[in-house]
């Protein structure tokens, strides 16, 4: 007789028995005898095609049968076969990364800087509102607000796309933040608070420039911080291997 040891999670299907004596000349026939003695155990050991489930490990006298001859491994009298489940899991499945074109994001930042500087020089208050609305529209549609312009530039081959697997949400949030700052700035300008209004516009210029020239997205950083403290609606963590607020590394073969 061969003894099979059943782990605690499967004992509900063996009437509580920890060790079961079975007949069998090989690992496969011993398992088949076990399954015929305790039919409820079968679906937890084998899949629909009769193959051993991937999370079922078998150890013969403390040696993994995969290192021996698999389920064809011969058994001797008094051998002890242990069923050892694989234990695994984790906070999230492969995070839903999507292709994000960072060249389009940089075009967006350059346009924000350019139009807002133009607004400041020409005292064009309405341009502040225009940029705010473009960013709000971009944030609502989940795309960079100045995407149409980028498409023209790209079709003229002035830009090479820079597509990497990334979360679109933090960029969307960063745009919304920029839009809110500019809206507040425009309102301040509209009621005559010149200094406060232009200060808000300059904050947006500075943050866009930091992103464009130093590659650091403060809005994304804020998003990931909110995610870390568990703020509702902020569920994404920085992609594997990426520092928060920085462009994630290109993953070969994924795009």
């Amino acid at each position, binding site marked *: 007789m061969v003894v099979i040891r059943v782990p*605690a*999670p*499967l004992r509900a299907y063996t009437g509580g028995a920890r060790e079961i004596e079975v007949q069998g000349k090989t690992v496969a026939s011993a398992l088949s005898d076990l399954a015929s003695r305790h039919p409820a155990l079968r679906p937890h050991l084998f899949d629909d095609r009769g193959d051993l489930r991937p999370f079922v490990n078998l150890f013969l006298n403390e040696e993994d049968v995969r290192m021996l001859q698999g389920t064809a491994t011969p058994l001797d009298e008094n051998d002890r076969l242990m069923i050892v*489940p694989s234990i695994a*899991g*984790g*906070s999230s499945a492969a995070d839903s990364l999507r292709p994000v074109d960072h060249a389009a994001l940089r075009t967006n930042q350059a346009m924000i800087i350019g139009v807002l500087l133009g607004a400041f020089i020409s005292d064009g208050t309405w341009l502040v509102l225009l940029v705010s609305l473009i960013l709000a529209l971009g944030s609502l549609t989940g795309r960079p607000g100045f995407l149409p312009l980028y498409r023209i530039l790209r079709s003229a081959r002035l830009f090479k796309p820079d597509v990497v697997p990334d979360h679109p949400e933090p960029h969307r949030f960063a745009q919304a933040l920029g839009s809110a700052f500019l809206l507040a700035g425009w309102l301040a300008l509209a009621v005559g608070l010149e200094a406060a209004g232009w200060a808000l516009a300059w904050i947006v210029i500075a943050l866009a420039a930091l992103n464009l020239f130093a590659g650091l997205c403060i809005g994304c950083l804020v998003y990931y911080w909110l995610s870390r403290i568990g703020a509702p609606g902020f569920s994404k*963590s920085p992609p*594997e291997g990426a520092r928060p607020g920085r462009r994630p590394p290109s993953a070969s073969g994924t795009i």
Partner: protein
Amino acid sequence: MTLQVSRTLLDQIRRHGEASYPDEGAGLLYGEAHGDDRRATALRPLANTHPKGERRRRYRIDPTDMMAAEDEAEALGLDVVGVFHSHPDHPAEASETDREWALPWFSYLITSVRFGRAAETRSWRLVDDRSIMIEEPLLVAQEA
């Protein structure tokens, strides 16, 4: 359907999650089952053997560690009744990955670790048809 742990044991589990941060930390719970209720009385912290670089989101316990733990629990007159692991900067909710790999009957104790500090700890079990994991009440006893 409940899981009872002592305050001391729960603290050890939470410290283990903090010490493993920013990676996920994991280990096994030893205890006694009484019908559908169980009481964890000892624990075995184990190495997260998932490939480096993915350990912030995943954990895996080596089957040889699992086998040794089953022997250890048996020598103590106990059973392996569950698994504990941490979710760095994620809520203490059983994820889709947790469900895919879950075993029936085990209690899955999850501690959220935010900024390196243990936040909430919750316990989950897989339903029989494997479709979802449901939360079970976690009873914390003041004395061991």
